[in-house]
């Protein structure tokens, strides 16, 4: 029964990691990119706890998972704040639009 639990945990880690990577590669909206990072962070937390549970070091795994949760939440907070400023300053959250805007040479912007 406990092996089934580990198998479910490993399947969850791989599934969440795959969904997060797929989202990072396909999505162009900044909010959705942060959301994909959150999904990958959940996969990381689960991976640490599953590894700790398998090796019998669940307390160490939990303390490390706490660090992962803190870092993941801070990434979301700072990423969302940056997205708000991007929307205010440039009027867009589309990654392609933003990269085109940042890589346009000044001569082209001035019409010369």
């Amino acid at each position: 029964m406990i092996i089934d639990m580990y198998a479910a945990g490993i399947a969850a880690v791989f599934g969440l990691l795959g969904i997060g990577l797929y989202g990072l590669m396909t999505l162009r909206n900044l909010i959705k990119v942060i959301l994909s990072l959150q999904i990958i962070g959940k996969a990381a937390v689960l991976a640490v706890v599953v590894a700790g549970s398998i090796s019998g070091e669940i307390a160490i795994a939990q303390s490390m998972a706490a660090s992962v949760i803190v870092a993941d939440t801070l990434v979301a907070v700072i990423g969302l704040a940056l997205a708000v400023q991007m929307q205010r300053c440039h009027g867009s959250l589309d990654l392609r639009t933003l990269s085109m805007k940042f890589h346009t040479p000044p001569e082209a912007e001035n019409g010369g």
Partner: protein
Amino acid sequence: MLSVAAVLVMLFSALLSISVRWLLTAALWLAVTSAGAAALLYMLGAHEIAVIEFSVGTGLVPVLFVFAMSLMGRTSSMPTPIIPRTAAGGLALLCLVLLGLTLLPINTAGQDKVPITFSQILWQDRSLDMLVQIVLIFAGIISVLNILRRTDAEPPGIRHDH
């Protein structure tokens, strides 16, 4: 059986959160993903982390997403992807296969160790890490306050003579 149900709920809601058009709905599906992850963590024996994940992932993070969306005034977006979906799916699958080949099979030896409590590890062995995390949280709060500050004042050096 419960663990399999939690995994299915988690994967289904994660898939919905990246595929729905409305950002608010996506944030709510992310909260459901966190709830499933918390349930699985509890079943794996990580009770404290399950509670933290449930309160942070289901309570705090979706509220932050909704707050950011209300500040931006944008709630939907579905542009065409940068990488074609089939190529992205193939690359993600390749990453998972390589990771699986590296990690599996998992050695389950060493489960009969002397148990140490979570609080003992957290507050004694990793006390420096806890201190750094507290500093990190405050640094994050200060950064966000600085990023979100409206700079209505003119930059120095610009004068208007009326």
